[in-house]
């Protein structure tokens, strides 16, 4: 039971990662692909923050009388990653809008059919 609780966070992070991965490779709608990519991203954030957590620790804001803090370095990394992630999401969605203008659809197989590329 201890082993299960000690690794539950990692397993859920992996499950979410695989759900996002599955959405990206199995669904043809471009907006849904980007949402799958975002789920994948959040799973990585969860994994990093799980690693940074210390049992009984406080948030890393130095206060009198508190000795144990969680690890601040993964927090910094993930803070940066969230902002960069939104920037890439915005770029992807802008590409979707342009694809819709050029092809009239955002379904992957219809785009391939128009290009005769598959």
């Amino acid at each position, binding site marked *: 039971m201890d082993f299960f609780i000690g690794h539950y*966070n990692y397993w859920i992070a992996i499950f979410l990662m695989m759900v996002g991965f*599955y959405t990206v490779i199995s669904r043809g709608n471009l907006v849904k692909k980007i949402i799958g990519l975002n789920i994948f991203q959040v799973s990585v*954030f969860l994994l990093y923050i799980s*690693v940074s957590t210390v049992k009984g620790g406080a948030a890393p804001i130095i206060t009198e009388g508190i000795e144990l803090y969680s690890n601040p370095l993964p*927090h910094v990394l993930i803070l940066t990653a969230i902002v960069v992630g939104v920037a890439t999401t*915005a770029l992807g969605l802008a590409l979707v809008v342009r694809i819709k203008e050029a092809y009239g659809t955002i379904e992957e197989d219809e785009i391939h059919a128009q290009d005769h590329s598959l």
Partner: protein
Amino acid sequence: MIDVFIDVTLLAFLAITAVAIVRMTNLFAIVMLFGIFSFLSAAMFVVMDAVDVAFTEAAVGAGISTVLMLATIALTKDQNEKQSRSHRSWLPLAVVIVTGAALVYGTLDIPAFGDPEAPAQMYVAPYYLERSIAETGVPNVVTAVLASYRGFDTLGEVVVVFTAGIAVLLLIGGKRQKSNTRKNEKKRK
């Protein structure tokens, strides 16, 4: 004990929401579920003592991403995802199961969640926790690292966001002229 209960429940909610997102076909519902997903993950970050990450995720992940996706749906006027038959459904599933099994096998060796003796907690982190207040005067260690010790990396992040903003403007900023020329080309054909 209550910590473990909240942790298990919130993560189960996250997993259920993610599965619901995959199964839905209405894009508006998917985007709303994604907003819920982001807020749940923000709550999860608070439980794991990462308060700075939590409010960034709530503001930027749940707020701005959701608005951007809604704007995309409004611009593309696609309400539903079409279920295509051309995709073989077993192949992605097999790839995902094999990859997931390999990753779970990888977790068996890593230290348990919240272990204070884990290697990740031992080397660099105590340095910042002990010295940041003397060296920078900022009580929040995350802010101290982000803005002071690693200020140049944050500048790099700003460059990335700026580049993405310029790229978005180039892609859809001059839209009206280009779509007119494309219509003219179609007329000529």
